[in-house]
């Protein structure tokens, strides 16, 4: 099974790295930057796992539910 877990800071959470990166984009001439949010993309290849197990891993290990949301995509 191949899966991708995308972890993003929750919308209400300040993302200082995203803000700093957005400023750098403006510095490089990109106009009208409204928001930059930095998250993680975790690619997983695993044998014999269930979707439920991957949800548990994404919730318990790959993300911190206090400040992050995750999205699980099963690719194959």
């Amino acid at each position: 099974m191949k899966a991708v877990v995308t972890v993003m800071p929750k919308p209400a959470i300040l993302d200082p790295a995203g803000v700093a990166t957005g400023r750098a984009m403006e510095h490089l001439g990109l106009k009208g930057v409204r928001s930059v949010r930095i998250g993680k993309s975790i690619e997983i290849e695993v044998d014999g796992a269930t979707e439920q197990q991957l949800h548990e891993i994404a919730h318990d290990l790959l993300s911190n539910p206090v400040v992050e949301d995750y999205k699980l995509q099963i690719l194959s």
Partner: protein
Amino acid sequence: MAPIMKVAVIQFPGSNCDTDCEAALKSFSGVEASIVWHKETSLAGYDAIVLPGGFSYGDYLRCGSIARFSPIMGAVRDAANAGILVLGICNGFQILCEAGLLPGTLQRNTGLLFRCEHLHLRVDNTATPFTSVLHKGQVLDIPIAHGEGNYFADQETLRQIEENGQVLLRYCDASGNVTPEANPNGSLGNIAGICSHGRNVFGLMPHPERVCDSLLGGTDGRGIFQSMIEAIQKTKAK
């Protein structure tokens, strides 16, 4: 004479304040401190547990997120639930939050800088096993060294820990004023350290073990360890 207090200092791969904690603890008479490798599974016989600072597992994924699943953490959780004193310093605080033994989490400093400096902390609650020898409003000079010390909890959690007196230390100026300028990392409410609802688990970003000897620039960290020793003495006297 048997030691008054036996303390386990947990060593994770990437811990780097473990021997500092051990040395600071051993500078108190009656304290026996041992380094315990994270692959161990028992903490029987210890009166207190310290999770030291460092960069466990290289801070990969999130600070403390992998260490919280180390084999020793089952025993740390059992000890915390049994009322044993658990102190988490810096990365240890992050691990306790990731493990759910303390509420909230530590995020990236708002200024993005790794802050390594002496600063001031105001003691907000002395009715705990970690702060009993200090006095309310006392200003401590204790250094920080972290890039992810920005304390965050949702509004409801924050309200609960404030109402329940779980905020023990806040960043302040030299006179004890809690101001935005004195906040090094963006922590909500200038929070530098919180304890659990039951008072026996305490996490803080500053490093008290680094100010336990005047040769090393200060002794303001000693009160926290002294409080723990006195709390354990009282428990044993019962």
